[in-house]
């Protein structure tokens, strides 16, 4: 009993010091409402803007329809484009005018039915239709090309059916897209956006706070108190963790109720994975600010090291497997990569444990790494 007492006293004192630190940080947060704004207003605004602004679903694509000789066949083919929700056709009588419109960016494609379309269709049974697409945005061009083929296939099937004929290709492609049957890009972009936004918030919340204390000299004041290094870091971390989780709940709520993204997994896995990621992001912010010790540099590193990598290298929008091997290796250093994998799986596919656990394990490693670095760099020594 006797030898236990000092340890218990020490433990009690440590809790008291931690409580003191927490109180100080809370007061600071409430006196300068900018961190509350970062945690709650920022995700609201960003998710709202990006949720509606980031979409890969092309609709009402302006196309030029050039019908040189309006035979019945040509007119019915052109009319098939009017009925498609994917196209907003504009009619032209001659090809050069359509070409002009494409050069000016008024239309994204040209469908060219030459004067012999009707006769070739009836006689030889091999009538070519020229389709020109503005290929600058290759992804959209590919989607538009697919839609054009869809319109063409539907028109042909109807035409054959009307004549009591049928045309079946030798091999028919029967495709089934899992988890997102209607191929709605929002369903995978919104969970990814939550990861991008949480990266931003985590880094912004903490990147500046320690650097500010170093710059103002209040860090020295903290260091001469009996507060231990890990208590200082915990005291900085916990309040911001609570703020960040608040922002996260808000984001998930918007994803489900405003953007109608299905949540097929469980809330427990979703929030567990998110808590791990938030800790890693806050840890990264802490590390940046302890290494930089200067708000200017800390802020710039936070901008460079968080948002753009999370946006481009996390698999949120660009598929990681298509990147060159060297870049794929690099993506393993981006914490958002693992969080995006967890989010997209939990939202769209469900609690797929092999995916969730392997990614969560790496996030734990990230947390440990960043806290270790932050702790070492904040030694209770002045240099």
């Amino acid at each position, binding site marked *: 009993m006797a030898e236990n007492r000092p340890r218990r006293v020490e433990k009690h004192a440590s809790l008291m010091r931690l409580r003191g630190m927490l109180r100080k940080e809370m007061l600071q947060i409430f006196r300068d409402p900018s961190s509350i704004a970062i945690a709650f207003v920022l995700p609201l605004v960003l998710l709202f803007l990006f949720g*509606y602004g980031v979409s890969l679903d092309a609709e009402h694509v302006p196309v030029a329809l050039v019908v040189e000789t309006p035979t019945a066949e040509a007119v019915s083919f052109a009319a098939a484009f009017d009925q498609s929700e994917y196209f907003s056709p504009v009619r032209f009588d001659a090809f050069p005018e359509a070409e002009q419109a494409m050069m000016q960016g008024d239309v994204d494609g040209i469908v060219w039915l030459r004067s012999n379309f009707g006769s070739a269709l009836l006689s030889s049974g091999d009538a070519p239709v020229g389709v020109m697409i503005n290929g600058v945005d290759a992804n959209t*061009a590919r*989607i538009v*090309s697919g839609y054009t083929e869809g319109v063409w296939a539907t028109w042909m099937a109807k035409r054959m059916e009307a004549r009591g004929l049928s045309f079946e290709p030798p091999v028919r492609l029967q495709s089934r897209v899992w988890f997102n049957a209607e191929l709605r890009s929002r369903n995978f972009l919104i969970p990814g956006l939550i990861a991008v936004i949480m990266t931003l918030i985590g880094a912004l919340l903490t990147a500046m706070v320690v650097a500010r204390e170093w710059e103002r000299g209040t860090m020295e004041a903290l260091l001469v108190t009996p507060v231990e290094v890990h208590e200082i870091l915990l005291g900085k971390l916990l309040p911001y963790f609570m703020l960040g989780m608040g922002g996260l709940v808000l984001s998930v709520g918007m994803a489900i109720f405003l953007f109608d993204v299905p949540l097929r997994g469980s809330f427990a896995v979703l929030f567990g994975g998110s808590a791990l990621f938030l800790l890693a992001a806050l840890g990264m912010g802490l590390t940046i600010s302890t290494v930089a010790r200067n708000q200017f540099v800390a802020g710039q590193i936070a901008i460079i090291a968080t948002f753009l990598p999370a946006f481009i290298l996390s698999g949120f929008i660009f598929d990681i497997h298509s990147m060159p091997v060297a870049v794929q290796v690099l993506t393993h250093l981006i914490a958002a990569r693992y969080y995006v994998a967890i989010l997209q799986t939990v939202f769209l596919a469900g609690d797929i444990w092999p995916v969730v656990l392997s990614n969560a394990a790496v996030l734990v490693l990230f947390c440990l790494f960043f806290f270790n670095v932050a702790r070492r760099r904040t030694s209770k020594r002045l240099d």
Partner: protein
Amino acid sequence: MAISFQRIAALVIKELLALLKDKKSRVIIIVPPLLQLMVFGYAATYDLNRVAYAVLNEDRGIHGRALLARLDSSGTFHRVADLTGDSEIEPVINNKEVLAVVRLPSDFSRNLDRGLPADLQVNVDGRNSNSAMVLLGYFNTIVQSFNTQWIAEHGSRGPPARLVVRPWFNPNLMSRWFIIPGIVGLLVLVVTMLVTALSVAREREAGTFDQLLVTPLHPTEILMGKAIPAVLIGLVESAVIMLLIVFWFHVPFRGSVTALYIGMLLFLLSTIGIGLMISSLAVTQQQGLLGAFLFLVPAIVLSGFTTPIANMPVYLQHLTLINPLRYFLIIVRGTFLEGADVRMLWPQYWPMACIGLFCLAAAGILFRRRMH
């Protein structure tokens, strides 16, 4: 008091020295943009290659094997597993081991031989719906070329009309050609914001701003002294980046250099205007940083850099009209790929000029008010 170019020049030199002499800020201005160009240049693509896929071949006939050989030799697909039963499909897709599972039903070759339609079943992981769509397009192309050859060899009747699709400006539809020129705009925007948005707040916190105020410098001169170094840094960086894009990434440059540089100067004018406006509003560096962030992030996401503006709801499309990056992206892509000249890009120039002049004027007014 007249504006003196000598005083401005002195201030410009002082600003450049302050930025480039400090090792940390020198590194931050030079290294990340080049590193980001290299990494993002390779990473940012919608095209798929080496797609991991699995095969469930219940057919084992000769035609099925011929079709699979086409998939394997296309260079796009990479077979990682041969499955033996239906129950194996779900786990390999769920656990992300493959992006697609191709299933050849047992009657595939028999149906083809009898002249009946044969079904090729494809299951695609739709967690990234864009990749799924691109992948379906690839499968479609391969099946179509198989069909064309089958029809030619067996003399059966083909479809009465066919599409001849030809993409302009980017014949192989490489999304890299679309994304990489856009990176110029992205990086120039980030660097000029970093240089300008924190500049005044930093001097204010360091106390050197008061020293600037007691010099004979006019507020306009101070503002110009802050703007010109950013223009110089932006011009040098963008030149290096664009040379790399043409000679390293081999993206063609087909348009007019004059048209591109008119756009570049106007773009710099507008981003520096916004940066200085944030700078003169911010009292502390933290506020300056937050302001820069709050502008940068939406400006990048809502610019058409990764996803087209045309896909946005109409009210958001209107909002992008105040985003200088939106106009500059059209200019770089136009001059690089479409061979655009000054006349064609006029609709992109004047909005940037308006944004730039408005923000610089606002920055000047805010700046002067803060001084009194």
